[in-house]
């Protein structure tokens, strides 16, 4: 089926999003042009159709995504794919703060660097960052996996729950209550196989897998001294 073109320009975002949603629901691919880095484009899309965004987008593009396959040609603002439950988002450039915040499922693929607090409070799904992972990424992540190929900024994986952060390259500092563990070969295989979907597999990598130190998990009810480490 032919790709539908939708022009954003200075039009109301409500109108633009309604058009995108209608096209997606009828199974058509969409090319959203003249995005002008505007906020809230393609929020809460329900179906698995493809939507491309010309240039860069503002805040919350693909927020609460529920199955659509989005591609942003250049950079993305804050909270791209926040709360998404299903689908796929590709950011060809760099990402702003809190990409994939609190996401439940699906995958976000950032080709450049991520902004700070990428995958904050995420509860499932995968985020792949080809560049560097911004500071305090994975903060309090409950579940899911963040994979970074270009190192990580300070306070990496701060106070995470049962999420995992996988990093290749320098980590400026680890966040509180975290530890680096030796990954099992089958876990490495599963990460590499996720990467192979993007042609990024490389068996010679030295992975650092960061998980929770679990000292803060039982603080109030059991382990009183844990908090002193902060």
């Amino acid at each position, binding site marked *: 089926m032919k790709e539908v073109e939708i022009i954003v320009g200075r039009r109301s*975002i*409500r109108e633009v*999003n309604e058009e995108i949603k209608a096209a997606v629901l009828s199974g058509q691919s969409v090319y959203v042009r003249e995005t002008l880095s505007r*906020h*809230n484009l393609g*929020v*809460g899309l329900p179906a698995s159709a493809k939507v491309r965004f010309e240039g860069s987008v*503002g*805040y*919350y593009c693909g*927020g*609460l995504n*529920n199955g659509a396959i989005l591609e942003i040609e250049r950079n993305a603002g*804050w*909270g791209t794919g*926040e*709360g998404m*439950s299903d689908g796929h988002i590709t950011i060809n450039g760099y990402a702003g*703060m*809190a990409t994939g*915040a*609190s996401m*439940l499922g699906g995958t976000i693929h950032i080709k450049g660097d991520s902004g700070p*607090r990428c995958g*904050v*409070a995420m*509860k*499932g799904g995968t985020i792949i960052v080809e560049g560097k992972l911004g500071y305090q990424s994975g*903060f*309090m992540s*409950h*579940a899911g996996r963040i994979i970074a190929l270009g190192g990580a900024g300070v306070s990496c994986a701060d106070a995470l*729950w*049962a999420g995992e952060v996988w990093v290749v390259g320098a980590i400026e500092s680890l966040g509180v209550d975290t530890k680096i563990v030796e990954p099992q070969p089958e876990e490495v295989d599963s990460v590499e196989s996720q990467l192979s979907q993007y042609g990024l597999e490389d068996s010679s990598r030295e992975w650092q897998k960061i998980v929770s130190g679990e000292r*803060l*998990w*039982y*603080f*109030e*009810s*059991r382990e*009183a*001294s844990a*908090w*002193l480490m902060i």
Partner: protein
Amino acid sequence: MAHDLNKSYQFPFEPPSEEDIAFNDNAIPNRPAGVPSSYDEGGSTRWTPDAIAEVQALAQLGRYQVRGYNTFNKRLPTFDDLTFVPATMTRLPLEGYRESCNTTTILGGGTGRVEKPIELKIPVYIASMSFGALSASAKTALGYGASKVGTMTCTGEGGMLDEERQASQCLVYQMTPSRYGVDINHLRQADGFELVMGQGAKPGTGGLLLGMKVSPRVSMMRKLPEGVDQRSTVRHPDFLGADDLAVKIEELRLATDFRIPIFVKIGATRPRYDVAIAAKAGADVVVVDGAEGGTGASPELLLNHTGIPTLSAIKPAREALDECGMTGKVSLVISGGIRSGVDAAKCLALGADAVMIGNAAMIALGCNSPRYEQDYKKLGTSPGACHHCHTGLCPVGITTQDPELEKRVDIAASAERVARFLTAITMEITMLAKSCGKSSVHNLESEDLRALSLEASALTGVKMVGMDKVFAW
């Protein structure tokens, strides 16, 4: 006879014994009769028994104390410092037992942005209390009770339960900074959406749910490892300031197709500024939760020593809406320690459009009721004094995730009690409103009140009794 001052005087009789002088049957040697001894009774104003116990507890625990319920601070001003001045000669009262008084309450209808504003039959609804803090049965009973009288409930931060959605005809879906259980499929089933920026019991801090309550179902809904102490984030992950909040609210509107109102809930700290910011950022309803608000668990110091009392938060919140031209557009909901229709009526008179009750609804459900006394005893408390929601061992099954304890919530009977309580407090409100000559509870005004203390007058802008003017400086 001149007395020689240089010579010591002697009684002309035998000197008395020390025992006879003490005149106390030798009960307390060396102490005059009737004078309490600081040695025996203490009485330090700094080191009261409570203060000593606090130090001892901290010295043992190595951390702050945690508990549920609400503030124990004895010095907060209360609604009891206001009294109604019903109509007499200058105004006509309505017949309290006969004439009608409108109680319909619309939330989010004034901005014109919302397709389906919330319409309630009464000006009171049930506060957001999470599944996790409360048992599923308690949530469900609250839902049915509210539905019966035409009002609503709110999910709280733990996500939406199917049974709650079914029970509650009007349900507000809450999104806290931690975003537990936030799922677009549930969002689409909600009648309203509440973005939480803080809560009255512990503003400036995220939620707390101790491991005892992180049951398999709670853990599944919140995506938490089972049995961990959940300390929620306090800042939203994807916005920081007022400008971002405006973009976020727009996103939520787009995600819900401009169908339902967006609530913003704040803990009362600086209501004048916070309410103005929320209203300008695009909220349809602003909820201000005072320091007396309840909670399932919190560090005790935050309960007792943070936030401002509900009584003092209403006037600045209403003035903020007036000042930015939002009165009549953005609705104002007040909560935090509202115990009765009288308290609620005072909130309405001071400027609230609706009132939210949490603890009061739980007590109607059965909290602190005199049953299962042995179980209260095991917690070291008794019915009427219980504040042990944090333990997950609620004797009446309300704030627990233990399946056996939860069975103690009889959903039908509890729902009926909640419905009757809501009916009764609505009657209390209309009775006061009619005595003040109001044909709608929303016509109650500050002029219908007088303050019994200078403090209450200064805090609320209500005229002081006797002086008939507002105490201000």
